[in-house]
C-alpha cells in the first residue's frame, strides 16, 4: 500500500485516550439505548457494563494491540521513506553521470586502498598468532651486554639449563632453521630432494601449544641424544604436496640423509613458525657433534617460550636474567653472556616491518580523508545547484529533518556504491601487495579479506559517507527559503557556500602535501638505496645452492667433490666465470669469529675483535665482479689437495692464507698496509693476508658492511655451497646445464635452490620498494585529487560569476588581468593549503624515520620540491578556468535572465 499523504502518527498517550474514548462511547450509547426502552438510568448503565464483559481486560488488550499497530506502521513508513529516498537518490545520481562516476571512483580509491592496506596490516601485524593464548608466547635470546649483542641465538646447553631451571614458564624450546640452509635429503620417495627442515628441541611444540593434525608430536624422550630420536613431523603443506595427504603415512618411515626416520605426525596448516617454507620438523638431537658441536660458544638456537598464566613480561625477564647470570658465572665460555633478552613473540615476528606498515596505514588514512573531502566538495558544488530543488521541497511542506535524511541517504548510497567498487579492487590490490613484497613480509599467508577486514571496509565506507554527506546536508537544512528561491534563479552564489568550498580545497591541498612529502621522502630514500655500491655486479649471475652430503662424501673427500663440481661447471659452455661461496649476499651473514690482527696484544679480560667469516672458492670475486683493491684473490693453486700417502684421502697441502674486506683492512691496518700482514685465527694460527676486496654488502643493502674475513673453502670447508656463474646470456637458461654438470658427478646430489643475483637484489629492496610504490601511488592520488578539487572550485567560481567578469571586461579590464585574478585566487588557496600541509608533514614524517635510508625525515630538499610541485600543479589547475574567464564575452553582462 503506498501512502501519498503522510499520516500523523499517534503517541502512547494518544493511544490510551483513543481507546478510552471508544469504550466510553460504547457504554454511553448502550446505556442511552436501554434508557430509551424504559430502563432506569442506573440499571441501564450496569447492564451495559455487564453485557460488555471484562472492561479493564479489554482496555489493556486494545491498548497493546494499538501500540503494536502504531509501531509497525511507523517502521513501515520509515522503510517506505527510505525506499523513496533510495529510488530518488538513484535517479538523481543517474541524471548526473559525470558527478556520480567521479565521486564513486574517488570513494572507491579511498576505501579500496584502505581495505587493501588494512588487510595486509591486519594479517601481518594485528591478527593474533595462530597458537592458543598467543600473548603468553615470547622469544628469548642470549645477550652479551659488553658487546651490545642483545639478540644472539642460544646454545643448546644453555637452552637445556634454562629449561631445567625455569619456574615462570610452561615450557621453553628452540629451533634451528635457516631458510635455504637447514635441510635434509629425502630419498626413496620419488626424485631425491632437499627438504627445508627446522631442527627443534624438546619443549618447542609444548611451548607453542602446537597440536598434530594427524598422528602425534614427538615425546621428550624422542628428542634427546641417544634416545629414539629418528622421528619426523611433517608440515601440512608438504604432507599434502608430497604424500597427497595420506594419513597412513604416520606409521611409515622415510629415508632422510640416508637414515630411516619414523613419521609420527603432521602439523595443522596454521603452523607457520619458524616459516611457512618449513617442510619437516626433526629433533635437533639428530644433528651430530661433527656438524654443530654441543658446546656453549655455539649459539645457534632460536628460542620460544610460553609464560605461565598470570606471569608478566617483567617477571619472565627477571627469571631469565637470574638463570643466565648464574650460568655465566658457572661456565667460562659464558663469561660475557650474563643476560637474556625476552620479547613478545608477536613483536619479534613482525618487528621491523611493523613500523613501515603502520606508516602505510597512516598514509592511506590520509588518502581516505582526502577522498572524503573531495567528494564533500563535489557534493557541495551540486548542492548549490540543487538549492532550488531543496527550497521547492521545503515550500511543499517537507521538514528540514526529512531533507537532511534524504541527503544523508544519498551520500550513503554513493558511499556504498564506491565502497563496493573499492572492496572489489582491494581483492586484487592486496594480492598485488603481497606479490610486490616478494616474500619479504612475514605471515603473508594470513592476509585475507576476512570478516574483520570487510567490517573495516564497511566502517570506512559508512564513516566516509557520513563525513562527506554531512556538510552538504547541513547546508541544505539551513537553506533559506526566500533567498534561495530568489537567488537560484539568478545564478548567484551565497558567500557561506563559497567559504566552505574554499576551506575544503585548502584542506585537500594540505592533505595532498602530506602524502606527497611521504612519497617524496620514500622515493629519495629508495634512490639512495639503489645508489649504494653493492660491491658486486648482479647482472647475469646465476646461483645454484646445495649442501654436500657428508654421508656420501666421507671425511675430507667432500672437499674433492667440491673441487670437482667447480671444475666440471667451469667446463660448461656459455659461462664466462664460475666460483662458489657459502652464502650469497643477503642470504647469510657468515660466521662470527674472533681474530687478532698482527701487532695487537689482547690483555687479560679483554675480548679480541670479531669479524664475519665467509667461505669462498677461488675465482669467486672475479665471478661476481667484486674489485680487488690490493693483492689478489685465491687461485686454484692456493687450495691444492694432496694425498699424504698414496691411496689415502687427499688433504689441504697449500699455505693457509686469507683475504679480507676493506672495512677490516682500514680498521686494523690503516694506510693500505694489510697485504703481507697476518691475522691470528683459531687461537694460534698466524695466517697471512694476501688480498683486500672492496666492501661487499652481505647482510643487507642498508646495514653497514661488517669487517669480513674470506676463508678459502679448500682450507677450511663448509658443506653449504652456493655455486655462482656469470653467464653469457639469460642466466636462468643455464640452470639446467649447471645442474646436469653437478649430477654428472653425483646423481644423488640434491639442489636446494636456484636463483639469480638480480633476484637477490630485487628481494633485498622489496620492502622499501613496496613502501615507495605505495606511498608514491598515494602521493599521486593526493596530487590528482588536490588538483581536481582546486580546478572544480575555480571552474565553478568562474561559471557562476560570468556576469561580474563580463562587467569588468566591459569596463575595460584587460583579459590578462582577469586571468591573473583567477590564477591568483587559485594560488592563494594552494599556497595556504601547502603551508598547512608542510607544517603537518613536518611533525608527521618522523614516523617514517625507521623506514628511511640515507635521507632525514625533515629533508629540506624534499619539502621544497613537494611544495614547489604542488604550487605548480595548482597553477596549471587554475589556468584552465582562468582562460575561460578571460574569454568571457562582455555582452553577457547586459543579458538578462
Amino acid at each position, binding site marked *: 500500500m503506498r501512502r501519498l499523504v503522510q499520516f500523523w502518527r499517534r503517541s502512547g498517550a494518544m493511544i490510551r485516550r*483513543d481507546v478510552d*474514548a*471508544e*469504550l466510553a*462511547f*460504547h457504554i*454511553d*450509547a*448502550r446505556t*442511552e*439505548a436501554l434508557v430509551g426502552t424504559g430502563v432506569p438510568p442506573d440499571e441501564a448503565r450496569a447492564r451495559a457494563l455487564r*453485557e*460488555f*464483559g*471484562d*472492561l479493564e*481486560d*479489554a482496555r489493556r*488488550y*486494545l491498548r497493546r*494491540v*494499538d501500540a*503494536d*499497530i502504531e509501531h*509497525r506502521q511507523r517502521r513501515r513508513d520509515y522503510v517506505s521513506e527510505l525506499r523513496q529516498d533510495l529510488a530518488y537518490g538513484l535517479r538523481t545520481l543517474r541524471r548526473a553521470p559525470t558527478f556520480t562516476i567521479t565521486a564513486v571512483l574517488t570513494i572507491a580509491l579511498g576505501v579500496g586502498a584502505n581495505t587493501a592496506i588494512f588487510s595486509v596490516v591486519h594479517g601481518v601485524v594485528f591478527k593474533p598468532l595462530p597458537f592458543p593464548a598467543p600473548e603468553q608466547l615470547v622469544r628469548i635470546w642470549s645477550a652479551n651486554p659488553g658487546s651490545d649483542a642483545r639478540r644472539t641465538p642460544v646454545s643448546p646447553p644453555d637452552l637445556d639449563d634454562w629449561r631445567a631451571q625455569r619456574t615462570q614458564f610452561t615450557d621453553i624450546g628452540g629451533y634451528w632453521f635457516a631458510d635455504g640452509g637447514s635441510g635434509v635429503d629425502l630419498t626413496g620417495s620419488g626424485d631425491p630432494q632437499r627438504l627445508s627442515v627446522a631442527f627443534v628441541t624438546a619443549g618447542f611444540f609444548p611451548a607453542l601449544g602446537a597440536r598434530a593434525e594427524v598422528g602425534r608430536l614427538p615425546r621428550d624422550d624422542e628428542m634427546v641424544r641417544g634416545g629414539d630420536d629418528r622421528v619426523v613431523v611433517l608440515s601440512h603443506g608438504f604432507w599434502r604436496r608430497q604424500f597427497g595427504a595420506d594419513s597412513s603415512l604416520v606409521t611409515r618411515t622415510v629415508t632422510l640423509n640416508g637414515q630411516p626416520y619414523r613419521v609420527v605426525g603432521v602439523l595443522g596448516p596454521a603452523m607457520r613458525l619458524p616459516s611457512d617454507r618449513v617442510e619437516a620438523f626433526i629433533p635437533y638431537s639428530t644433528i651430530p657433534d661433527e656438524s654443530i658441536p654441543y658446546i656453549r660458544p655455539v649459539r645457534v638456537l632460536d628460542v620460544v617460550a610460553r609464560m605461565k598464566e598470570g606471569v608478566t613480561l617483567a617477571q619472565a625477564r627477571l627469571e631469565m636474567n637470574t638463570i643466565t647470570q648464574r650460568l655465566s658465572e658457572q661456565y667460562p665460555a659464558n663469561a660475557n653472556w650474563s643476560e637474556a633478552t625476552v620479547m613478545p613473540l608477536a613483536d619479534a615476528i613482525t618487528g621491523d616491518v611493523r613500523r613501515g606498515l603502520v606508516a602505510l596505514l597512516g598514509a592511506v588514512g590520509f588518502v581516505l580523508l582526502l577522498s572524503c573531502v573531495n567528494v564533500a566538495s563535489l557534493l557541495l558544488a551540486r548542492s548549490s545547484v540543487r538549492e532550488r530543488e531543496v527550497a521547492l521541497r521545503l515550500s511543499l511542506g517537507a521538514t528540514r529533518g526529512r531533507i537532511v535524511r534524504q541527503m544523508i541517504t544519498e551520500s550513503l548510497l554513493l558511499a556504498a556504491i564506491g565502497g563496493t567498487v573499492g572492496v572489489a579492487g582491494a581483492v586484487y590490490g592486496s594480492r598485488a601487495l603481497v606479490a610486490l613484497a616478494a616474500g619479504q613480509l612475514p605471515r603473508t599467508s594470513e592476509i585475507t579479506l576476512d570478516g574483520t577486514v570487510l567490517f573495516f571496509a564497511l566502517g570506512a565506507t559508512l564513516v566516509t559517507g557520513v563525513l562527506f554527506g554531512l556538510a552538504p546536508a547541513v547546508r541544505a537544512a539551513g537553506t533559506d527559503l526566500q533567498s534561495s528561491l530568489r537567488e537560484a534563479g539568478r545564478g548567484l552564489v551565497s558567500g557561506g557556500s563559497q567559504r566552505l568550498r574554499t576551506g575544503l580545497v585548502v584542506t585537500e591541498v594540505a592533505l595532498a602535501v602530506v602524502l606527497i612529502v611521504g612519497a617524496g621522502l620514500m622515493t629519495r630514500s629508495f634512490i639512495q638505496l639503489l645508489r649504494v655500491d653493492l660491491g658486486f655486479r648482479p647482472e647475469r649471475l646465476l646461483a645454484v645452492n646445495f649442501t654436500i652430503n657428508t654421508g656420501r662424501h666421507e671425511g675430507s673427500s667432500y672437499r674433492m667433490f667440491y673441487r670437482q663440481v667447480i671444475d666440471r661447471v667451469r667446463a660448461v659452455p656459455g659461462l664466462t666465470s664460475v666460483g662458489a661461496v657459502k652464502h650469497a649476499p643477503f642470504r647469510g651473514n657468515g660466521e662470527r669469529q674472533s681474530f687478532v690482527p698482527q701487532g695487537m696484544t689482547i690483555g687479560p679480560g679483554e675480548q679480541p675483535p670479531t669479524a664475519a667469516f665467509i667461505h669462498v672458492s677461488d675465482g669467486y670475486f672475479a665471478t661476481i665482479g667484486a674489485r680487488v683493491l690490493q693483492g689478489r684473490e685465491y687461485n686454484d693453486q692456493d687450495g691444492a689437495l694432496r694425498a699424504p700417502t698414496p691411496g689415502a684421502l687427499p688433504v689441504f697441502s697449500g699455505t693457509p692464507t686469507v683475504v679480507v674486506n676493506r672495512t677490516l683492512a682500514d680498521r686494523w691496518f690503516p694506510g693500505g698496509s694489510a697485504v703481507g700482514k697476518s691475522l691470528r685465527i683459531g687461537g694460534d694460527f698466524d695466517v697471512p693476508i694476501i688480498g683486500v676486496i672492496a666492501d661487499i654488502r652481505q647482510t643487507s643493502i642498508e646495514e653497514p658492511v661488517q669487517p669480513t674475513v674470506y676463508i678459502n673453502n679448500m682450507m677450511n670447508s663448509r658443506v653449504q655451497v652456493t655455486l655462482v656463474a656469470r653467464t653469457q646470456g639469460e642466466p636462468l637458461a643455464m640452470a639446467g646445464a649447471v645442474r646436469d654438470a653437478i649430477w654428472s658427478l653425483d646423481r644423488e646430489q640434491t639442489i636446494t635452490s636456484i636463483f639469480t643475483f638480480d633476484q637477490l637484489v630485487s628481494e633485498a629492496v622489496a620492502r622499501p620498494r613496496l613502501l615507495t610504490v605505495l606511498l608514491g601511488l598515494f602521493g599521486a592520488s593526493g596530487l590528482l585529487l588536490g588538483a581536481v578539487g582546486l580546478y572544480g572550485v575555480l571552474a565553478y567560481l568562474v561559471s557562476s560569476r560570468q556576469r561580474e567578469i563580463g562587467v569588468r571586461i566591459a569596463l575595460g579590464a584587460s583579459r590578462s588581468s582577469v586571468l591573473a585574478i583567477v590564477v591568483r585566487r587559485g594560488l592563494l588557496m594552494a599556497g595556504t593549503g601547502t603551508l598547512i600541509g608542510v607544517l603537518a608533514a613536518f611533525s608527521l614524517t618522523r614516523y617514517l624515520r625507521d623506514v628511511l635510508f640515507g635521507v632525514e625525515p625533515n629533508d629540506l630538499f624534499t619539502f621544497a620540491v613537494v611544495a614547489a610541485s604542488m604550487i605548480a600543479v595548482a597553477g596549471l589547475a587554475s589556468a584552465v578556468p582562468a582562460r575561460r574567464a578571460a574569454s568571457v564575452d562582455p555582452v553577457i553582462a547586459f543579458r538578462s535572465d
Partner: protein
Amino acid sequence: MDRGAMELLQGTLDVLVLRTLAWQPMHGYGVSRWIRERTQGTLEIEDAPLYKALHRLEKAGCVHAEWGISDNNRRARYYRLTTAGRQRLRAEESAWRRYAAAVFRVLEPA
C-alpha cells in the same frame, strides 16, 4: 448447550465482524447491535471480545479505523473493511459453509 444462547465457536467472531462491516463502515457499538439483532440473542456475545476482534483485525490489516461523527453527534471510531478484509471474509465464508454442510450431513440421516 441446553440454554437458548450458545457460546461462540472460536474464530467465528472474526467472520461475523467482517460480514457485518461488509454492509457498511460502522463503529464498535453499531457492530455489536447489528450482530445482536441478526442473531436474535441466539448467540451470547459479550462486547469485550468483539472489540478485541475489531482491533485484532485492524492489526491484521483487514479493517481500517478512523474517527468519525456518530448519529447522535459524538466522536466514534468507525471501522471500514479493507481489500484484504474482503478477501479474508470470502475465504472464511466459504470455509464456514463447507464446514456447516459437513456437520449437517452427519446430523441429518440420509
